[in-house]
């Protein structure tokens, strides 16, 4: 626990050690706003809610989350600091979780800084703040899911560009797995049970359910088990490939 906290702290500080974090946050805020106002029709739809704001989160995350996660392990391997880190008295599990938590907290900070839109919508009308809170929670959970995928794939390579593209692709598949484009590919040869399973892996399905204001156990379990699964894979990959 202690080691995890120390690693997370170091990792989080290093996000802010360079202007990268600030650039990232500014662009993230600008884009979430722009999507909500222009493409989501925030004003035009005549409803005081944040649905048009949250609706674009999965798509923004496809771009932004791999950008956070790509450096987690790829950079350590590229610069050789992984040899330093993994010969300190910390277990691989502590290191993986610590790094993941730092990235998750960072994405949480970015998400929390979108609060002006929440103030705006409360100023304009009487939104259901319960739904908004649930949506924020859902968005944060989804960010965690994306990050666990990105962190795991980042451990596979020394190249951050590859880590970015791989993470974006896998996250895209997870986001899209509920739509026919993906399912038809499997329907041709896979048994129904597999197709249903794949459909249930869709981020969109679970995220949309949460943004309706209903946090159900199965959505929580979905994101939690997704994160656990990918971090477990992450630990294995770091163990196997750290020295390559």
């Amino acid at each position, binding site marked *: 626990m202690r*080691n995890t906290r120390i690693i997370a702290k170091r990792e989080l500080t*290093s996000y802010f050690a360079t202007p990268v974090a600030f650039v990232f946050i500014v662009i993230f805020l600008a884009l979430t706003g722009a999507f909500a106002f222009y493409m989501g029709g925030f004003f035009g739809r005549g409803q005081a809610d944040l649905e048009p704001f949250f609706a674009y989160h999965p798509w923004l995350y496809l771009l932004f989350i791999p950008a956070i996660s790509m450096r987690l392990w790829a950079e350590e391997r590229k*610069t050789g600091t992984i040899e330093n880190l993994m010969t300190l*008295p910390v277990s691989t599990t502590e290191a993986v979780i610590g790094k993941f938590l730092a990235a998750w907290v960072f994405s949480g900070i970015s998400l929390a800084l979108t609060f002006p839109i929440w103030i705006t919508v409360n100023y304009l009308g009487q939104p259901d703040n319960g739904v908004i809170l649930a949506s924020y929670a859902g968005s944060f959970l989804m960010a965690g899911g994306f990050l666990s995928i990105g962190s795991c794939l980042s451990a596979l390579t020394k190249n951050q560009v590859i880590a970015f593209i791989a993470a974006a692709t896998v996250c895209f598949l997870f986001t899209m797995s509920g739509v026919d484009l993906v399912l038809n590919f499997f329907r041709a040869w896979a048994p129904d049970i597999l197709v249903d399973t794949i459909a249930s892996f869709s981020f969109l399905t679970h995220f949309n359910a949460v943004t309706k204001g209903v946090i159900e156990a199965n959505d929580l379990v979905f994101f939690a088990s997704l994160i656990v699964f990918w971090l477990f894979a992450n630990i294995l990959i770091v163990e196997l490939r750290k020295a390559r």
Partner: protein
Amino acid sequence: MAELIKLDGLTKCFGELLAVDAVSLSVEAGQVLGFLGPNGAGKTTTMRMVAGFMEPTAGSASVCGHDVIDDPVGVRRNIGFLPEGAPTYGDMTARSYLEFIAEIRGFDGGEKRRRVRRIVEMVALEGVLHQRIETLSKGFKRRVGLAQSLLHDPPVLILDEPTDGLDPNQKRHVRDLIREMSAEKAIVISTHILEEVDAVCDRAVVIGKGSLKADGTPEELRARAAGHNALVVTVPQAHTAAMDAVSDVPEVASIDRLSEAEGFVRFRLVSDKRKNLAPMVSDWLRGRSIPFDEMLVERGSLDDVFHAITEGDSDA
């Protein structure tokens, strides 16, 4: 003395490639072991396995009684490891990096500050504490890496090329540091600078193509050089003809004429058994009343031994 490092048949394969081939050896407290070998001989791989970064394919290694496979964290606690190239987090300042290391080594509050202050003094980092590591010169970067490995005052130190890329003054400083600490620690340094072995090591191990080729004090290794104990004698030119008969001395295997200058000629006499020829040859010269201007026993060079051992010359 306690064996702090123990390797038993340590082996590492990368696919088909046998990188380290059944290396067995142990290092006691108070010993500085020089790990020699050409690039690619398996030095770094061996050190990585001892430090718990790589898992051995076969065999075992233990540090202070902790096995590297069963208890890697126990090993890491007792070891200070400077990886090849001294990688550190470049975006951190030297101070925040060392504080991070101190925290992860289990030091908090006053103890953390005390440890960091002590190590900063020891490796002379005072002037650059608040600079980001990536902006430092190579020498300072290396010293930050060294500080990281020494911070918790470990009983075992594994330093992979600790003086690589340092200027001569910095090299001397690091060697002094290693010697100062050597009394109660087991220290392994890898290097291909042979003078370093003389400067700091009391034992040297040569590794070539993954396996141990030689193990002994630097003096013992030197004795394996082909030209060890060769004798250089300078005699006046008038007596050169008489010198041909020196091969009558039973131990002398060959005579080379090295140079002629200002009426003197230098000869180099080599013993076939690398014995010291000085007593016998000086008796012989005196017996024949040949005056000599200079008599010098050459020591074998580690360079020659290193070359002979690692290039597979069986003569060494």
